[in-house]
């Protein structure tokens, strides 16, 4: 129990009344902790940079790209503002999101028809100030439109989360933080920090990251 509490208190997003004076500056208090202490400890400010774009580069779908952000999104969804998903590649499955603590009444899904419409919708959502976070899956996105989105995120004090192919690592990007996900497993996720304002690039791995107890592996009986 004590161990669990200690672990909890290590999270940079938690303010303790006993911390007289506080060591962190004002700007960093607005950073959005990911909820994974190993990752938060390497990120400046202890979390995702607010009012900016963050890129998650992953290979195929299903590498844990959403799982990595779920604790942060769950907290943001309970802060009064909305979480917008623009042009998600599959159906966002409500029971799973709810189980992660997301407030579904604050999740907005937008399905624009064309790519240009989806960039427009993302920009509106970022700029409006209504959304705490906007998730998008751009098929192709040049640097100029990314810069527009970055400005919109600043204007609306919104967190823009881009999910992109790993090949996008070659391109330049105005995003404040770029994370590359590498071979995940249930117990372990390697996160490479390609770019981060205020800290050198590096790589870390998160252990037991999926947050659920690993089950006993059983030999699964396959029915004939």
């Amino acid at each position, binding site marked *: 129990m004590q161990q669990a509490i200690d672990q909890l208190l290590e999270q940079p997003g938690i303010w303790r009344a006993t911390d007289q004076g506080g060591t962190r500056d004002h700007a960093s208090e607005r950073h959005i902790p990911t909820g994974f202490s190993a990752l938060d400890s390497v990120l400046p400010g202890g979390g995702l940079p607010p009012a900016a774009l963050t890129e998650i580069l992953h*290979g*195929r*779908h*299903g*590498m*844990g*790209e*959403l*799982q990595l952000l*779920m604790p942060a999104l769950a907290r943001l969804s*309970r*802060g*009064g*503002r*909305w979480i917008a998903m623009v042009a*998600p*590649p*599959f*159906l*966002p*499955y*409500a*029971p*799973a*999101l*709810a*189980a*992660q603590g997301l*407030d*579904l*009444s*604050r*999740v*907005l*899904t*937008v*399905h*624009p*028809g064309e790519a240009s*419409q989806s960039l*427009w*919708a993302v920009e*509106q*959502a970022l700029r*409006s*100030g*209504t959304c705490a976070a906007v998730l998008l899956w751009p098929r192709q996105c040049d640097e100029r439109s990314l810069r527009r989105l970055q400005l919109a995120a600043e204007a609306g004090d919104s967190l823009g989360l881009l999910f992109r192919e790993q090949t996008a690592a070659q391109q330049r990007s105005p995003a404040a933080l770029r994370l590359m996900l590498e*071979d*995940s*497993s*249930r117990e372990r996720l390697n996160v490479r920090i390609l770019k981060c304002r205020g800290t050198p690039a590096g790589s870390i791995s998160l252990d037991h990251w*999926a*947050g*659920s*107890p690993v*089950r006993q*592996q059983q030999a*699964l009986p*396959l*029915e004939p």
Partner: protein
Amino acid sequence: MLWLCIYLPHLPVESFGDAETGDRPLIISEAGAVIDCNRQACRHGIKIGMTPSAAHALAEDLRHHPRVIQNEQKRLEQLATWAGQFTARVSLDPPSGLLLEIGGSLRYFQGLEPLRQKIHQGLHRLGHRVMMGIAPTPTAAGLMARSGRQTPVMQRSELNHALASLPVDVLALDAKQSTALQGLGCHCIGDIRALPTAGALRRLGKALIHTLQKAHGERPDPRADWTPPAQFRSEMEFLEPITDVQQLYPGMAQLIEGLCADLRRRDAGVMRLRFTLAQQSSEALPFTLGLLRPGRDAAHMRLLLERRLERLSIKDGITGITLQAGRLYAMQGSNNRLDLITEDAVHEPSIAWEPLVETLDNRLGSDRVKTLALCAEHRPERAWQYIRPGSGQHQKAPLSSHQNRHTRTPADRPFWLLPQPQQLNCQQGQPVYNGALVLENGPERIESGWWDGGDIARDYYQARNSQGQRLWVFRERRGERSWYLHGIFA
């Protein structure tokens, strides 16, 4: 009683929606004489009373239109409805005046000057040039407005003095009366009042003297109150068909302004604004603007309109616009909630999300903007649904009961669901998706739905392939017993 007269000297021109747009001069004529012209025509030196041919000589690209008195009457009625937001008593003073009884409105609008400013700015936004007069009798207010005197007359005792210096032109005189007045040496109203009554009645006619008596409050001056129509409907016609979408905006914005004023009068709001664009040679084009909750904020509607117009394409010239309000909703006052007693203490006070959703709705179509909700259902594809934002059908119960009944951790469900389960190939009895799948967890048996035709019997597994993808797959328990991919643990 205090009356404010709104006098619209340029109503014949302003009754057309596009009189001042563009830079072409315009004259309106009646009985062989120019009775009104737009600003551009004034700049060319065209004066009221000229013959149209003289005007044509002054300006080459002159537009010339005969007077349409019905249009003016319609416009005046629309403005009377609009003015209903300032006072309950509005009456028409044809051909181009409105009378507002403002004695009872002064306190609400914090005095005469703020009220006058509001009316003036409102009319300016609607594209009208206006003169106003304020006096204790309606006729005197009308005379003051036509004379252009700004100083309001607040007391009956001041009327005599204020009216005496007005020129006789402000009275609607016919030719005979004006020669008679000239012959008598009367140049202002004070001069007429100084004449002996019996003689004046004989020389100038009963009507004129009675008008003056009404103006001075010596004779009753009843006015019929304007009753706005039960359903809001407002029209605007253009002299020339409009082909550029952006040129529609000013006219539509004016119609919205009128609608919002009417809504304020009724203390109501609308959710649908139905425009009808009359086209030159084809059927009228319907055009709807949607709001998420009843409203009457003109600025907000204009913003929506601006964005909506970006997507409108017109092939034909637009000759007129009609605006009808959809169903009216009572506006409810909002209470400031006390934080101590809110139901859901987790939420901070939520911010206004409607503007964003309306913006997206109006450009993308409302079926593309949705939010998620849970359903109490075991079949995975039916355990959720899309709903409209703010429709308040969010159920919290199913989740908790689900957790109670089953001991499974919530992590059993993937974040992505495929729209349709995708059948997987098999190699040596093992399912394959980007490489052979290793089943890590399962099975979770779901058999349900025999009662409604959506019968399923499946064993769900969590699987992983060599690429590191975590997938949610199932195997049919009946029939072919084939494998399907149903979700992705992203």
